[in-house]
């Protein structure tokens, strides 16, 4: 029935700097099924991209994965030799980046950038790889594929570049497709087209998708399950419908109230006061306590674990009994 393509358990990433060890991703766990999408939301800097880097074993120095396990199709990636990892990246697990303007090599034609990805993983001729690349360019809805094949990124618009990045990610039919804010840098109409394209891909290729965004509206459209992150921790993990029907964590509630059009009554935009704490000055208790309207003495002194039921996990003491807490 449902087939697990990726399982992440207790993944932690930390940066080892002169100011000390900065925990950046803290004990993240989830499993991803074939043809499903897991959404990851959270404010800027909460560790979404670092989670991705941790999964791909590509955390930049001075950071590294400090614990946990990442199993891709049953194979452990943590501690796998770099050569073998390279064989997985771009073929079994592929990544679409946040920044289409800078994530392509400015000096290489788009066609080559796709075909070199194919050639890195398959023993076929250059001509065959080029043919397949051309076909992919067509598949992601680019008009005049031959022309674009021979274009360098500088000749294309942001939306077109992102399609090239997507074609590149797809070229070896990955089991897992990670989209790290794929539409943040694009304008709204292009954004809608790209989102539809990603959903088509999920359907046609059967890939499991990890979709990262800080846009709750987009999450609602794209995700099956949603993981809400705050300061490197998962604070809520639940099916998307339940997330919007009954958000339990005060942070999630805040994020939902931030969506334009979801405002309570007066039409004024809601904002969550304060900002994500610096990693070298984390509060002693719950990481969200300094910004939480419900914070108690206990929240400030003690850090909550991931509580609630298996179907709806929340990192908040208010949910300790496992039952939902009424939205106030």
């Amino acid at each position: 029935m449902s087939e697990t393509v990726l399982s992440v358990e207790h993944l932690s990433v930390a940066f080892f700097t002169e100011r000390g060890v900065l925990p950046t991703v803290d004990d993240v766990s989830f499993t991803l099924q074939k043809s499903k999408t897991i959404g990851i939301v959270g404010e800027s800097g909460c560790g979404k991209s670092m989670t991705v880097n941790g999964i791909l074993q590509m955390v930049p120095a001075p950071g590294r994965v400090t614990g946990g396990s990442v199993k891709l199709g049953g194979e452990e990636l943590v501690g796998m030799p770099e050569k073998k990892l390279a064989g997985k990246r771009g073929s079994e697990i592929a990544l679409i980046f946040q920044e289409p303007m800078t994530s392509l090599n400015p000096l290489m034609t788009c066609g080559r950038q796709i075909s070199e990805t194919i050639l890195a993983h398959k023993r076929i001729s250059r001509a065959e790889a080029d043919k397949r690349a051309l076909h992919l360019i067509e598949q992601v809805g680019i008009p005049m594929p031959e022309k674009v094949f021979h274009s360098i990124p500088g000749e294309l618009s942001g939306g077109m570049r992102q399609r090239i990045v997507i074609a590149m990610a797809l070229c070896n039919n990955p089991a897992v497709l990670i989209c790290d804010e794929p539409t943040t840098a694009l304008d709204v109409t292009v954004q809608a087209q790209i989102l539809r394209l990603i959903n088509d891909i999920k359907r046609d290729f059967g890939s499991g998708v990890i979709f990262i965004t800080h846009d709750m509206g987009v999450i609602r459209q794209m995700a099956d399950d949603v993981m809400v992150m705050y300061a490197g921790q998962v604070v809520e993990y639940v099916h998307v419908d339940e997330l919007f029907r009954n958000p339990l964590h005060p942070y999630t509630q805040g994020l939902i109230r931030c969506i334009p059009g979801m405002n309570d009554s007066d039409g004024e935009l809601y904002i969550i006061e304060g900002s994500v704490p610096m990693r070298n000055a984390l509060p002693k208790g719950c990481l969200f306590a300094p910004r939480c309207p419900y914070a108690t003495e206990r929240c400030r002194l003690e850090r909550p674990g991931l509580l609630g039921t298996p179907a709806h996990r929340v990192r908040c003491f208010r949910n300790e009994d496992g039952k939902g807490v009424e939205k106030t």
Partner: protein
Amino acid sequence: MKQYLIKRVLLAAGILFAISIITFFVLNIIPGDPVALMLGDNADPQAIETVRHNLGMDKPLVQQYLEWITGFMTGNMGESYFQHKPVSSMLVTSFGYTARLAAVSYAVALALGLSIGIIAALNRGNAIDHTLMTLAVAGISAPSFWVAIVLQIFIGLRFKAIPISGLGKPAAYLLPCLSLGMRYAASIARITRTSMLEVMNQDFIRTARAKGLSRRRTVMVHMFRNALIPIITVVGTDLTTLFAGSMLTESVFNIPGMGALLVDNITKRDIPVVQGGVMVVAMLCVLIYLAVDLLYAAVDPNIRLGGDR
């Protein structure tokens, strides 16, 4: 692109023309009379006058210049005052030495500099990087004539097979090319490292890695090619100084190159030789800069497009 090329060539011609005027008049205005030098201190004024007349030096300067430049355009650079040989043949001989020395030295410099720069960048911050960069700073700070003398003493005098003067045998290239090459290798290494580091942090390198490309391909195809532009600039500047003749190195190793030729003949006021030499060097510099511009466009298609880099 074609239009751009035409513009560049015209500009180059203009620059050369200006240089020819400036050198000509400066050489003729600075004090020191070649004829007085030629005939000795207590020469007969009448004799001096005759020689000046024979050499065409009594004509108005502007006329002399016009005669010289028309000659130059048709390949006749005149005759040396002192050696009575055509300037062009003297230049060919001297430039031959300088060009051979420059080519071999710079090949050494490129091979060393690029590999050191790349290796240092890939090892940023660790002991390998620090060692290589310390060497590079030493290489830039040590004057190459000093390195040359040190090499002569410690290698040349010890191994008889390695000559310390001239460029007769292939082995004779070793010491001068090392001493010259090391200095340039050091500056190439530094710019390569800096440029590589800048590229390494860019998103598309992360893409290359996420695509599962081999380390080798990521470094050579994606990093290095994108790091090339600043390196080409440095290479262009280096080559122009090399072709003007590395006077000190040439004199330490007793190589009769452009540097030696120009210095000798400036002291003697052998104006046609100096004028011809300066023009050849200037033409070469202009050509190198033109080549550098073309290389930029070849490496980075965005420049051809007038694009966004």
